[in-house]
C-alpha cells in the first residue's frame, strides 16, 4: 500500500512540475542561467527574442528542453564555452549562439555535451565560434538542422564545427558547416550516421574520421574544402551518394583515404578536384558506380593499397585517370567507362575489344618532375604515352581494365 502511494505520488509530482519557464528581458526570469536554476526534469525553458550576454552556462543532470523563440541570441563575448551540458533526455533548439572564446589549450565550444545520452541539438545557428558543437563520451544523440560558421583563415586558430570524441550512435543530419577547421570531425566514434549535410570552405576537411569504425555518410555535399573528406585509421565505412567538389590546390583532395579497410564507396560524384581520391594504405575497399569528372587526377594510388575493386565507374575528362606510385598492382579495374579510351567495339556488345590502361607514363614523369606538367597537351607526350601503353615498362603491366565500356554508365542519382 505504501509502495503504491509512493508510485502515485511520484507520478503526480513529476507531472505537476513539467512546466514552461519563460525567459526574456522584461520577464521575471531574465537570464538563461536563472531559468536553468529554476528548471526541473521535464521542464521547458522558452527563451524569447533578445540578446543574452552569457557564457559558462552549466546544465548538469537536468532533463530539460531549451527552446528559442524567434532566434534569441546568446552572446558568449569571446569568453570560453557558452553552454555545457551533461545528462540524459535533453533538447537544445532554436538558439543563436555567437562569439565563443578561443584558446590553444582549451576546446571552447558553443555547445559542449559530455557524458550524455538521448539528446537533440536542433535548428541552432552558431556564428563566430571556436568549436561549434563538441560531444565527449556521449551516445544516442541527434544533431540536426544547425548552421555553424566562423571565419577560419588559418587552421591553427580555428576549431571544428561538429566534433565527436569517443561518442557512439550519433546522427548528424542536414547541417550546414562553413569556414571552420574541420566541418565535422569524428574521432574515436562508432556507429554514427552522417546524412544530407553541407560542408564548404572549411580550412582542413569537410568531414573527418579518425580511429572510427562502422560509420556511414550519405547524400552530403563537400565543396571547396582543403580536402572534402578524410578517412583515416578506420574500418567499415560506408560512403554513398555524396558530392565532392572543388578541392583545389596543394595537398587538396576530394577524398583522402589513409589506413582504411573493408569499406564501400558507391554512387559518389567527384568533380573538379586536384585529386579526386588519394588512397594510401586502403585495403578491401570497393568503388562502384562513381563519377569522376574534370579532376586533375581522378584517383591517385600510393603504397600499400591491396584488394581494392574499381567497377562501373565513369572517368570523364580528367587530366589523369589513375596515378600510381609503383610498378606493382594488387587492385582490380573492371567494366569502367573511360572518356579517353580510344578503342573499338566490333562485336557491338558495349564493351571495348582492346583493354584500357588507365595509368599514363606521363603521370610518372609529372610525379618525378612536377614542372613537366606544361607538356600536358603536347604531341610528344601523347607519343610517349602511346608507346608505354603498347609495351608497359614503367607503369604496372597488369593494371588493365579488360572490359572498358563504350558508353557512360548510368546510375540513378
Amino acid at each position: 500500500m505504501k509502495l503504491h502511494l509512493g508510485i502515485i505520488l511520484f507520478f503526480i509530482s513529476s507531472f505537476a512540475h513539467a512546466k514552461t519557464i519563460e525567459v526574456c528581458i522584461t520577464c521575471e526570469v531574465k537570464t538563461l542561467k536563472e531559468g536553468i536554476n529554476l528548471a526541473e526534469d521535464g521542464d521547458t525553458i522558452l527563451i524569447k527574442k533578445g540578446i543574452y550576454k552569457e557564457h559558462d552556462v552549466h546544465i548538469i543532470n537536468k532533463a530539460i528542453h531549451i527552446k528559442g523563440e524567434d532566434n534569441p541570441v546568446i552572446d558568449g563575448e569571446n569568453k570560453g564555452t557558452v553552454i555545457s551540458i551533461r545528462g540524459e533526455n535533453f533538447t537544445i533548439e532554436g538558439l543563436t549562439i555567437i562569439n565563443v572564446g578561443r584558446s590553444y589549450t582549451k576546446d571552447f565550444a558553443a555547445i559542449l555535451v559530455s557524458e550524455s545520452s538521448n539528446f537533440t541539438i536542433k535548428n541552432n545557428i552558431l556564428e563566430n565560434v571556436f568549436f561549434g558543437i563538441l560531444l565527449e563520451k556521449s551516445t544516442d544523440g541527434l544533431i540536426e538542422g544547425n548552421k555553424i560558421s566562423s571565419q577560419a583563415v588559418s587552421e591553427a586558430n580555428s576549431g571544428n564545427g561538429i566534433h565527436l570524441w569517443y561518442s557512439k550512435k550519433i546522427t548528424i543530419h542536414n547541417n550546414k558547416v562553413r569556414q571552420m577547421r574541420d566541418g565535422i570531425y569524428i574521432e574515436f566514434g562508432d556507429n554514427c550516421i552522417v546524412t544530407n549535410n553541407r560542408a564548404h570552405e572549411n580550412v582542413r576537411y569537410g568531414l573527418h574520421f579518425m580511429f572510427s569504425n562502422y560509420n556511414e555518410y550519405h547524400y552530403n555535399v563537400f565543396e571547396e574544402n582543403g580536402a572534402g573528406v578524410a578517412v583515416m585509421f578506420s574500418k567499415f565505412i560506408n560512403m554513398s551518394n555524396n558530392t565532392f567538389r572543388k578541392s583545389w590546390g596543394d595537398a587538396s583532395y576530394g577524398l583522402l583515404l589513409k589506413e582504411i579497410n573493408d569499406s564501400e564507396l558507391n554512387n559518389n560524384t567527384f568533380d573538379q578536384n586536384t585529386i579526386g581520391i588519394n588512397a594510401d594504405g586502403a585495403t578491401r575497399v570497393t568503388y562502384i558506380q562513381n563519377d569522376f569528372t574534370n579532376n586533375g587526377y581522378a584517383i591517385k594510388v600510393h603504397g600499400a593499397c591491396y584488394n581494392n575493386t574499381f567497377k562501373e565507374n565513369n572517368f570523364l575528362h580528367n587530366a589523369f585517370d589513375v596515378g600510381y606510385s609503383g610498378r606493382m598492382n594488387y587492385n582490380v579495374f573492371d567494366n569502367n567507362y573511360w572518356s579517353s579510351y580510344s578503342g573499338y567495339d566490333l562485336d557491338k556488345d558495349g564493351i571495348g575489344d582492346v583493354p584500357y590502361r588507365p595509368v599514363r607514363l606521363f603521370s610518372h614523369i609529372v610525379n618525378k618532375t612536377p614542372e613537366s606538367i606544361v607538356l600536358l597537351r603536347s604531341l610528344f607526350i601523347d607519343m610517349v604515352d602511346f608507346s608505354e601503353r603498347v609495351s608497359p615498362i614503367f607503369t604496372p603491366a597488369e593494371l588493365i581494365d579488360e572490359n572498358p565500356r563504350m558508353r557512360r554508365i548510368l546510375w540513378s542519382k
Partner: protein
Amino acid sequence: MKSPILLLLLALGLLTSCSTQPEPINYGTDVCHFCKMTIVSKTHAAQAVSNKGKQFKYDAIECMVNDLNMENKAEMSILLVANYLNAGEMLPAEKATYIITPNIPSPMGGNLSATANNADAEKLKAENGGELFDWNALKNRKVQPNHGHH
C-alpha cells in the same frame, strides 16, 4: 683581391645549401610526414632534420616517435617538439619532459604533450593526472592511440 670574397661567397652558398637548420612549420599548409594530416596544432607539432638536411614535419609528437621507430630511418641531427604551454615554441626533444594523460588529447590520439621542464610537467600532472616521461623513455615506447580509458 676579389678571389677571397668570391671564395667566401661560395663557401657560404655551400653552407646554406647543406643547412641542417629546421624550417619553420607552415601551420595549415604543411602535411605530416607520417600520417599525412595537415599540421594544425601549435601545441603538439614536432619536426626533425636529418644529417643531410632533409626536413621532416609532424602534426603530433606521437607521429614523430612512431616515424623514428620505423626501419631504415635516416640519422637525425635535430629533433624538436612543440611546447604545450607556449603555443608555437619548439623545444629540443631531448630536453623536454613529456606527459601522457587522457585529459589532454593530442592530434593522433596519443594523448601526448611536451613541456619545457620537469616543473611544468609536474604542474600539468597535478591538474590532469597521467604519466611523465623523458625523451629516452618515450622514444622506445610505441605510442598508440589510447582506446582504453573510457
